[in-house]
């Protein structure tokens, strides 16, 4: 029974991965692509790892997959924030349909 639930988790994660990569190809801007590539792919991979834990059980590989979930959930937002900050400071323009840029307003107050 836990095998079947694990395989359901793996298929949901595969769907999130595939649509995240499709958004990475189709969206028009760096900052829009960052939404699809980081959030969706991270959630999909965490779902695949949790399904692996349910299939394998409480063995060494299962506990390592839980450790990988915690590590990915901690480090992926940090990497996305660093990429967005670096891209904005490098002077990459926003898409022409974007309507607001809070970071440029905040950066005027910095030194």
């Amino acid at each position, binding site marked *: 029974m836990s095998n079947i639930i694990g395989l359901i988790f793996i298929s949901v994660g595969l769907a999130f991965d595939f649509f995240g*990569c499709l958004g990475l190809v189709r969206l028009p801007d760096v900052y829009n*692509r960052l939404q699809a*590539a*980081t959030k969706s792919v991270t959630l999909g991979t965490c779902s695949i790892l949790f399904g*692996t834990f349910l299939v394998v059980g409480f063995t060494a590989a299962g506990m*390592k997959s839980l450790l990988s979930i915690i590590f990915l959930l901690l480090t992926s937002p940090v*990497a996305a924030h660093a990429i967005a900050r670096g891209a904005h400071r*490098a002077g*990459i323009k926003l898409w022409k349909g974007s309507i607001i840029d809070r970071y440029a307003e905040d950066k005027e107050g910095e030194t």
Partner: protein
Amino acid sequence: MTNSNGAKILRRFIGAILLIGVIILILIRPFPFLFYPDLPYIGFLGRAIYIIFLACTLVLYRVWRGPTGADRLVAVDALGILIVGFCAILTISTGRSWYIDIGIAWALQSFISTLALSKYLQGKGFDE
């Protein structure tokens, strides 16, 4: 690269050829050394591996044709996260538990290289 009509048609043709090739890979499932064929649900896991190959093909398209460096950096970050899920599926489908160790090491290395390259992207060097 010229942006004429012929070049656009050629790019779409190459993309269609790649997508059809990966879909054929999902259907016929070559490379039998990736599987441990006594499992009852090995058909699902074999197709799952090639769905991840399809996602990696889309990511490599963005690495190939990113207009700026930040697009390529985003794509490489997403590729590093995808490989971790690939190693997790290989852990089940081959029955060898050291594939998840490769996944953990790849996640660590991908995180550190993403931080270093985004620091490089600002154009101010590594010591700010």
